[in-house]
Structures are given as structure tokens and as C-alpha cells.
């Protein structure tokens, strides 16, 4: 449904998004996870044709955001971080305006407006001025606005930011109820939010893609495991990388060994541990006892865990109340 290839967005001096590629299948809820300033909003703005990419391509439902923006815009619903509301309008008047703007045929407008009012549970404020609504209602009207034309893809930028715990739960339920009909991308900097609402997750940090995986896989990998880079060198003869790999995999606590590079005498791997295990000492002993030299052993920079810590350390406290 969504295809992003080599997407780069550069502002005057900063690179907001750096060569990101990913694909999203139909009907899925994707979490777009990253700390503040990671490039989430920029990527979403490119997808919604608000910003043109500096490099790379993005397409929605087979239409390129640069070449056929009107087709893309017809198929996309977007809720920016601050809901785009006109304070002087009434809720129903606003939804009517958006419906016209999105090109819904005149005869269907009333039906569509009633439908989203019911789905987003904003019936009791339908004649209130938008400027007088509470934060939770503003968010829901924003969501109603995004789904009014029944778009294939729904892009939600931090849909639960600034809501109170009860509203967060309601909003999450609402988003989940929308899945199936729509492909949903939602950005957040809160990990539990991804766990609770999304099926797949894309992690970005400082404009770079860190990982894409299903939520279960990722949380399994994240929780307490560590990744170390290991470089092994033979003392005399040529080195058999397969043998080294086998040896590493036998080390207790190691969950996965990923070959990185090899050149005759030397080869390197990335070793991931099981949850809650530190394997550096065992790995070092195993290598040396097998008669090889260990030339490098270091934790991998920007492991998922580090990012996870970065993400959760900041958010644990306020999020605790929401559970």
C-alpha cells in the first residue's frame, strides 16, 4: 500500500530523513517509533504530499507522491500533530467543509458526516465551536476529519500526545477499530503505545532507519538482550568462518550470530544474546580456548536496546499512569 524507497529530506543545514526505505502492506497498523526530532513528522509529510522529498521516491496505493499528488491525496487521510481545526467553525460545519474539500459527491456528504460523527463519538458536540472544544474532542474531530473520505491510508502524527489517560485508551481503541478498512501509520515516541496498537513497527532515529519488524519480534529482541561485534583472527593458518560461527553459537546465552565480513585470516560477526544475559566474557573465553585471536569485542553502537532505553527512559513516568 505504501512504498518508500531511498527517501531523503534535507533542509538548509540539516538532514531530517536520510535514505529511508520501507513497505507497508494493506490493512496493517504500523507504528512509526523514534525519539523527538527523529524525522517521523517529515516522513509523514512527504507521504501526504505536504513536503516534496529531496531524494528518493514514495508511493501510496501505486501513485507517486511527486508525479500524481492529487491521486495520492484522494487516498490518504492525515491527522497532523496539531489537529487542523478552524476555531470559528462548528464541528458539523467543519466536517462538511472537509468533506467538500476531499471531493466527496454532494449527495453523500451528509451521510459521511453523520457516519464519522458516530464513529468518533462526537455527536454531543456537533454544534459546538471548534475553538471551545477540549483537547480530547479536538483530537477526535481531527480523526473524524482524516477518515471522512474513507481513505485507503491513514497517517496519524502522534495521535495520543497530550491526552489524559482515559482519552489515550479511547483513542487507541478508536484507531484499532479503524484497522482493516484502512492501512494506518501512526507515529509515536512511546514504546508501549506501539505494543498496544500496532502490528508492525518502524524505528527511526536521527533520520536513519534503525529497524523494521513485527512488534512481537522486536520486543523480544529488545527486552534485555545485547549485541556485540566480534572480530576473530587465526594465529597461523587460514580461518574457516563457518567453524567460528559454529563455535560462537555454542556459547551459552547466545541467541543469534550474524556474519558481517571475512577476509582470509580474519572474520567478524555480530552476536546477539538472549534476554537478560551478558555473553561478552563467555564469547571471549570460547574464542581464545579454540585457539584463535580475539581482535575486537565491543557493544554495537546504537543497538536496539540503546534506542529502546532512550525511548522509554523519558516516557516511563507519564505513561505509567495510562496503563
Amino acid at each position, binding site marked *: 500500500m505504501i512504498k518508500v524507497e531511498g527517501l531523503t529530506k534535507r533542509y538548509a543545514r540539516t538532514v531530517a530523513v536520510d535514505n529511508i526505505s520501507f513497505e507497508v502492506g494493506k490493512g496493517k497498523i504500523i507504528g512509526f517509533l523514534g525519539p523527538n526530532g527523529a524525522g517521523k513528522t517529515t516522513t509523514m509529510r512527504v507521504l501526504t*504530499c*505536504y*513536503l516534496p522529498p529531496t531524494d528518493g521516491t514514495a508511493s501510496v496505493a501505486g501513485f507517486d507522491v511527486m508525479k500524481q499528488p492529487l491521486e495520492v491525496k484522494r487516498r490518504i487521510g*492525515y491527522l*497532523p500533530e496539531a489537529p*487542523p481545526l478552524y*476555531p470559528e467553525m462548528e464541528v458539523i460545519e467543519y466536517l462538511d467543509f472537509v468533506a467538500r*474539500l476531499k*471531493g466527496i459527491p454532494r449527495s453523500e456528504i451528509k451521510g459521511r458526516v453523520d457516519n464519522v460523527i458516530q464513529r468518533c463519538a462526537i455527536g454531543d458536540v456537533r454544534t459546538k465551536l471548534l475553538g471551545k472544544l477540549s483537547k480530547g474532542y479536538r483530537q477526535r474531530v481531527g480523526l473524524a*476529519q482524516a477518515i471522512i473520505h474513507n481513505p485507503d491510508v491513514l497517517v496519524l502524527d502522534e495521535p495520543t500526545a497530550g491526552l489524559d489517560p482515559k482519552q489515550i485508551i479511547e483513542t487507541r481503541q478508536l484507531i484499532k477499530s479503524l484497522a482493516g478498512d484502512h492501512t494506518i501509520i501512526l507515529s509515536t515516541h512511546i514504546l508501549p503505545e506501539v505494543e498496544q496498537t500496532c502490528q508492525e513497527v518502524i524505528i527511526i532515529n536521527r533520520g536513519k532507519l534503525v529497524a523494521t519488524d513485527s512488534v512481537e519480534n522486536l520486543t523480544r529482541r529488545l527486552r534485555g538482550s545485547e549485541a556485540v561485534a566480534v572480530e576473530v583472527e587465526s594465529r597461523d593458518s587460514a580461518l574457516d568462518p563457518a567453524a567460528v560461527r559454529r563455535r560462537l553459537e555454542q556459547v551459552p546465552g547466545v541467541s543469534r550470530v550474524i556474519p558481517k565480513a571475512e577476509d582470509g585470516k580474519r572474520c567478524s560477526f555480530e552476536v546477539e544474546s538472549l534476554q537478560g544475559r551478558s555473553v561478552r566474557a563467555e564469547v571471549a573465553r570460547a574464542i581464545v580456548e579454540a585457539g584463535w585471536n580475539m581482535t575486537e569485542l565491543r557493544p554495537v553502537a546504537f543497538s536496539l536496546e540503546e534506542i529502546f532505553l532512550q525511548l522509554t527512559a523519558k516516557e516511563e513516568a507519564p505513561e505509567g499512569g495510562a496503563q
Partner: protein
Amino acid sequence: MRNVFTIYRKELKSYFASPIAYLLMVVFALIFGYIFYAGVAIFVTRGLESQMFGRGMPMDMNEWVIRPWLMNMSVIGLFMIPMITMRLFAEEKRSGTIELLMTSPVRDTEIILGKWLAAFTMLVILLAAPALNLGFLFAYGKPDWRPIVVGYLGLLLQGGALLAIGTLISTMTRNQIIAGGATFAVCLLLWILDWVSTYETAAWAKVVSYLSVVTHYEPFSKGVLDSKDVIFYLSVIFFGLFLTARSMESVRWRA
């Protein structure tokens, strides 16, 4: 076309949702009510005087009352333009609603046209209220209606041109006050550029004076419909809206 109308309707409604439209209408009606009264009072006094002194010179109502009145409207109208255009884009940029417009299946040109047309309609409404005064002239005298129509056409063209410039300036900032202030400065400049012709006759002075919107209004106030002035205003409207479209594009690239 439907999209233009959607934007137009929303924009016009929002003028009347805030006090700005009513305020402008009241101010406009008061100022031109007074200027009209003053013009008629002078006309009547002079008329009585010339009768008393036995000079039976016929006095032209169009010449004495309507022409200065229209000229004043042209100049004072300059000061109303910023209040009409300043919020057009600046407010949408500030509140973030511009994201809604720019991610909806609507072309930039449709947004611009809708907004400019709404501003233009606001101007028509503003100009319509003082026109009621002219009804008195028709009730008690016999003014020629044709110069009035041409004069009003000129006001609309001049206003439309300045609105296009104001719309352009409104896309350049997210602060209404800055947009309004800058538009006011440009309108003022376009008025006083004409003054250079009073002390300088070199070629550059003619060019500068040609740029003044008020210079081009003068023939209209006399009831002269000159294609050169019509084209001047139309080209300013077109050029202003064209630059607005370019400016919106740059908003996308820089935002």
C-alpha cells in the same frame, strides 16, 4: 471549480465569523457618509452663492460631488486592503490548518483563487454600503450614472490588484500583524509613488509614477474607461496571484 467555491465559501464565512467584516463596514460607511455629506454641503452652498450673485453658471454634480468622493474612496480603500488580506494565509500557517488544505486533493491555484475571490467579495460588500449615499443624488438631482459605474469599476480593479499583492504577502509569514503591516507599507508606497511626478520629470520618474495605483485610478474617477489602465490593474492581479502560487510552492520546499 467546485474546489474554488468550497474554499471561497469557507473564507467568506470566516470574515463574518469575526468582528473584522462588520468593523470594516461600519468604518467605511461612516467615513464615506461624512465625505459624501461634506461634498454635498459644499455643492449646495456654492450653488446658493452663485444664484445669489446672479451668476447662473450650471454646476455639474458629477464634477463637484461624485468625482472627489470616488477619488477619496480610492485612497482610503488602500488602508482597508491589509485588513482584508492579512489573515488569508498567515492565519492558516500559524494554526496549522494549511496542512489540511495542502494535503487535500485541491490544487494550489484553486486555494489561491478561492481566497482571493472571497477577499474580493468582501471588498465589493464594503464598497456597496457607501453607494447607498448616491441614491440621494438620484432622488434630488440628475447626476450622470455612467461615470459612477466606471468609477466603481475602477475601484474594484484597483482593489483587486492590491488584494492580489496582499494575498501574496500573506503567504510569506505566519504572523497576521506582519502580513498586515507589510501590505499596508506596500499599499502606501504604491500611492505616494505618484508624488514623484510633482517635482521630477525625468524618464525614471515617469516609470515610478506609472507604478502608482492611484495614478491609474484618476481617469476612472472622471468616468474615462482607458484600456491602458484596465490592463495595468489586470496584469497586477494576474502577476500577484502568479507570485502567490510560486510563494506557496516555496512554502512546501522550505516548510
